[in-house]
Each structure stands twice: as C-alpha cells, then as structure tokens.
C-alpha cells in the first residue's frame, strides 16, 4: 500500500535559514495526524511543501506517489488545504463558495456539508466576512471536505477558536472521517484534546522532526521516572532519555521504553500527550544554544 504522504530528506531553506531539514516521514493512510510544535518550528513550511505551494530546496515529498510541486496538476485533485487565514472571499456567501468549489473541481459533493452547516445554524446566504470566526472555520472546513480529497491538510485550524467552536470543529471533522477514510493532517500548537481526534503524532521543533509515531504507542512507551540522581547515568544506558532534569536530591527523566519492569529505585509515572510533547520541546530548547550541526546528529 502506498502511503498517501511520504517525504524523504525533505528540506526548505530561506536564505541562510533552514525552515525544515532532514524531514523523512510516512504517514499511515486513513489516519488523523497531529503536527505539533512551537511557533516557527517549520509546521507551515512542511504543510505548504506537501500541498505543492513551495518547491523543496532538497529531498522530496510524495502525495499519492507524486511530487506536489512538480506534478501539481496530478496532485491537486487529491489534496484539500485550508491555510491558517482560511483564504475565504469575505464578500461571498458560504453558498457561493460551495458553487465556486463545484465549478472548479471534478470531484465535489457538498450535500453533507450543507446539511452540517444548516444544523450548526450557519447562514449560507450571508457574506462570510460577516460570520463569526468559528462559523468561518466551519465554512472553510466544509469546503475542504466537499472536495472529497484523499488528503485534507489544515494549518492551525484550532488556533483562533474558542473551546466550544473548537469542539464543534473537531466534531465535524471526525464525523466526516467516518464516511470518507481520508487522511487528515492538522497542525496545532495546542496539544490538549488532540489524542482524542488524532491517532498519529509528528513533533516538529527547530526545523526538525523530533518524533513521528502512533499516539497510542507514544502514550504507552513514554514514562516519567523519578529517582536518585546517581542512578541517572545507568538509566541512560538502558532507555533513550527524552529529557531529564536533576537537583542534588532527585532526578526526573522522561524516557522512551516498552513499559516493562523497571529498576525499583525509580518511581514510574504515566504521561499525558501534552507532557510527552513538552518533554521533546524542552529538549530542543536546550539544544538551541548548541551548534546546529551537532543537533542534527543527535536528533537522527
């Protein structure tokens, strides 16, 4: 089975600055992928490379087996993309957007979308510029779902939404997933609640992929250990340590392990997805002060 999304050593440089580097990924088809990381980590760059809005500086991306930039006409029908600013025409109504979508796309089905917008009491006949932020995001999402693409890419769809609108947005997205089986890739710097809607996790920080794994797997394999600082060196020979801190009396380490039996000197704590992400991000925060090339060898 070909992965819907594959990248190999993908990189993008702006001037002297690498926005993304050494990015090698294969996203499982039909999954909902959370791309998380701090602002400026390279999330938008990666998404724009995947949908063919940017030309890679090095390496390659493949969407359904094709290069999104060089074979845009082949790839575009397979991809729906909602940019961070949603790119709607503020003086057009939702109904007009749907008509536009129908005329511009071969594959288009907005029956479910209209039904859903109707149920959410979003007026189809009002210019979208006069809708609330939450309503606009539903319209943008609706357009991307009506396209019935194999890959739906959403850049920070939750960032500007209040908690209720966020819940409604994710609900629409998950309902659509029951019917379509498309692969969904969404970026977010908000992690809380993502483990319910996503099943695959990619953490991006300082232009590099820190980890790409199933969320269930991440939750089972990562644990926090608390114990004496003297035991830390021995621990690091057994399990990969994601991040550790120590005081004179106590060491705390987040490790990636198989959840088997531990040395009794360590107290074991399970982690939430948010804590796992934080551990990876804290690590890169420390790496920031070291030379970049060294980071590359260590992250690899």
């Amino acid at each position, binding site marked *: 089975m070909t992965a819907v999304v594959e990248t190999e050593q993908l990189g993008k440089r702006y001037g002297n600055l690498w926005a993304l580097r050494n990015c090698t990924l294969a996203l499982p088809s*039909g*999954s*909902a992928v959370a791309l998380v990381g701090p602002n400026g980590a390279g999330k938008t760059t990666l998404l724009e490379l995947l949908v063919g809005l940017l030309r890679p500086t090095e390496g390659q991306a493949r969407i359904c087996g094709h290069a999104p930039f060089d074979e845009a006409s082949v790839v575009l029908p397979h991809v729906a993309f909602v940019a961070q600013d949603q790119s709607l025409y503020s003086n057009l109504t939702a109904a007009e957007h749907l008509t536009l979508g129908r005329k511009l796309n071969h594959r288009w089905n907005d029956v479910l979308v209209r039904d859903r917008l109707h149920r959410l009491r979003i007026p189809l006949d009002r210019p979208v510029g006069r809708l609330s932020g939450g309503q606009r995001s539903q319209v943008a999402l609706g357009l991307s779902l009506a396209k019935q693409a194999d890959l739906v890419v959403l850049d920070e769809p939750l960032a500007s939404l209040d908690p209720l609108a966020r*819940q409604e947005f*994710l*609900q629409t997205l*998950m*309902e659509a*997933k*029951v019917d379509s089986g498309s692969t969904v890739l969404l970026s977010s710097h908000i992690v809380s609640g993502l*483990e*319910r*809607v*996503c*099943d695959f996790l990619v953490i991006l920080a300082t232009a590099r992929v820190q980890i790409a794994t199933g*969320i*269930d797997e991440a*939750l*089972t394999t990562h644990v926090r250990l608390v114990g004496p600082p003297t035991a830390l060196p021995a621990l690091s020979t057994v399990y990969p340590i994601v991040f550790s801190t120590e005081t004179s009396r106590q060491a705390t380490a987040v490790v990636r392990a198989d*959840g*088997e*039996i*531990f040395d*009794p000197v360590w*107290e*074991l*704590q*399970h982690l939430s997805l948010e804590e796992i992400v934080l551990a990876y991000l804290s690590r890169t925060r420390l790496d920031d002060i070291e030379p970049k090339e060294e980071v590359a060898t260590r992250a690899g």
Partner: protein
Amino acid sequence: MAPYRQIIQQVRQAILTGRLRPGDQLPAVREVVTTIAINPNTVFKAYRELEHEGLVELRQGQGTFVRQGPQAMAPAELAVLRRSLLRWMKVAQRAGLQQETILALCAATLQEAERLLSEEAG
C-alpha cells in the same frame, strides 16, 4: 492512558457491574464519534480489541453486541479475587510503594500472567 484503552476499560467496567448485559448493543461507531468528537479509528480499535477479548461480538450489518457469556463472573467468586488482591495491596502499601508503582507492577505482572497463560495454552 490511550483513548482506545479508556473505551475498553469503560465497556469492561459496565459489563462487570451489570450496566451492560449480554445481548445489549454497544453504540454504533458513528454515534460515539458524533457524541464525543473522537476519532472513529480509535472506536474501531477499541471495539476490535473487545471482540478479540471475547467480550463483545460483531454481527454483520447489525452492530456490536455484548456476548452471552462465560466472561460474566459470579459475584461471590469476584469477591474472593478482590479479597486476595486487597491483602496484596495492603502489603505493598505497608512496604511504602507509591500508587503509580503499584499500578505499574500490576500492569507488568498482568502482562507476565497473560504470557504465561498463552504459553500454557500453546
């Protein structure tokens, strides 16, 4: 805890406490997704695992149902198991083990027991 495990645990508990009885239907995946905005893959995964454990069965075109079953344990038997576990936990706590450590030990021992049982069966 992984969300699919939460679902499994909830169903298991509902069966154990009698809130779900043999023959009862579990909510359809779509219904679960609509109600709590959760990834359908997660619900499928939980249902598949419950089926694998023999707690529920998938009836083609009808849905997922709690099985008639050898799984249901008599309350008296359950009480005996619980008492022996209680004794063990008191020992563990007196020894100064933290709750997480106890739970981790339980999980690890459970895995070992499953492995041993499957070796015996195999």
